[in-house]
């Protein structure tokens, strides 16, 4: 049998024997960013459609968590930087071809927007909350006149943020598993789905839980379709992408992905939501908890496996 044996004398830390440049920070951040995008999307969408009173958890309560989620995500991003004291360099330039640059600037818009939205509704959750300074009250009073504009900005920026978490990976031609443009829509859908799940977990209103749960069911169906499309695309592509897909189709990630991400994170919550909609008694928190668990694990697996996939030469 004709064989080829490649021996490289290089052993750079974090590069060899395989890339390990991104550990837990990046997948955790991608999850938090997607979740924040999902929550903001529904808050903005329901507000624009005048459903604020019908779905108060989505519009008023869940967005209060967004600044916290984003702050934790940004902290993880900062911890991941290897040359930390120079992080401000992100904001001395804009590189149109760099997804990282797009993300940095998007977050600079999303973060203050989410803080303002949360500040406008904080008294809905904490009735005794008092903004100590008069100027804060004046500013919020002024801003409350522009809620509609802000809601539109939230919907658009949430889509940009959600898609960006996927494009951040898909832009790398060097890592065949990531190099598929379907990752943008897939991560967006997954982010929206975890956002919907988060709202269901928080909501105390049965009708709201049911409505958002049905949206989540639809998103899960889209996500399943996108995942199947992703693997179909890989299998029909070049050798390096076939090998990348094979890590999930018989290779080392097969069990983890299909059991924990696909079955437990997508199929089972979908079935539970269907049962629930048919009037069966299922504890409401199981399906959304599984969706969130699947969302976290999906990002960890994709970031890790992507760094194992490579061109051979």
């Amino acid at each position, binding site marked *: *049998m*004709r*064989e*080829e*044996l*490649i*021996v*490289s*004398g*290089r*052993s*750079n*830390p*974090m*590069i*060899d024997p395989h*890339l390990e*440049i*991104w550990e837990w920070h990046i997948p955790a951040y991608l999850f938090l960013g997607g979740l924040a995008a999902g929550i903001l999307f529904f808050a903005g969408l329901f507000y624009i459609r005048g459903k604020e009173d019908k779905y108060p958890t989505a519009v008023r309560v869940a967005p209060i968590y967004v600044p916290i989620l984003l702050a934790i995500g940004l902290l993880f991003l900062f911890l*991941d*930087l*290897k*040359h*930390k004291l*120079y*992080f401000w*360099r*992100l904001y*001395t*330039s804009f*590189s149109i*071809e*760099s*997804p*990282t*640059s797009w993300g*940095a600037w998007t977050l600079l818009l999303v973060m203050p927007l989410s803080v303002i939205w949360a500040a406008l509704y904080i008294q809905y959750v904490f009735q005794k909350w008092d903004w100590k300074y008069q100027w804060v009250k004046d500013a919020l009073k002024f801003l409350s006149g522009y809620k509609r504009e802000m809601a539109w900005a939230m919907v658009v920026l949430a889509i940009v943020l959600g898609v960006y978490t996927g494009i951040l990976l898909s*832009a*790398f*031609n*060097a*890592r065949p598993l990531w190099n598929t443009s379907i990752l943008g829509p897939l991560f967006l859908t997954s982010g929206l789905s975890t956002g919907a799940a988060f709202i269901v977990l928080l909501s105390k209103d049965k009708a709201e839980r049911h409505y958002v749960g049905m949206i989540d069911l639809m998103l899960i169906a889209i996500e399943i379709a996108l995942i199947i499309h992703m693997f179909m695309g890989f299998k029909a592509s*070049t050798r390096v992408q076939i090998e990348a897909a094979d890590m999930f189709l018989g290779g080392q990630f097969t069990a983890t992905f299909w059991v924990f991400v696909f079955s437990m994170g997508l199929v089972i919550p979908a079935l539970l939501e269907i049962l629930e909609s048919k009037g069966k008694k299922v504890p409401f928190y199981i399906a959304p908890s599984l969706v969130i668990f699947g969302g976290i694990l999906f990002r960890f697996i994709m970031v890790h496996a992507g*760094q194992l996939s*490579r*061109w051979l*030469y």
Partner: protein
Amino acid sequence: MRYAMAIDTKKCVGCTDCVVACQTENNVPIGYARDWIVEVTDGTYPQLELEFRSERCNHCDNAPCVRCCPTGASHIIEGGIVKVEHDKCIGCGACVAACPYDARYVHPEGYVDKCTFCDHRLEQGQDPACVAVCPTKCLYFGDMDDPNSEVSKVVKKRKFKTLIPEAGTEPQLYFLI
């Protein structure tokens, strides 16, 4: 001007002098390397073929590492040399993940570092350190835009391959086969 390097895989014996010369010249931290030797054994026993390649950054014409850099730290200088400006690098790792040749590494001080084609030596009219020390003279360096340069002539005369041209990076290391 377009700097490029040709590596004669028939002459290279894999002695790693180029690796040591680079580490010394560029103060590469211990345990790291900007260039390295790859040894490929190919065929069916006993008909085996051995190829030695002295590899480094390909200083690509279409460099994915430069495109994905959010701060402009990764940039291209005169002659097509891909460089990293340490004071602009935030160490996000995007360029490291973007390189299909894995030619970059994170310096212990935090910034990303790589082969520079020894541009500090080029300024003084010298060859890169790896080229200068090669005992079998298997490395050719020069300007591909100049038809009379050593590298242009040897690439014209000999058969060559580049590494993963299908990645679309337009690499500028020519491996003579």
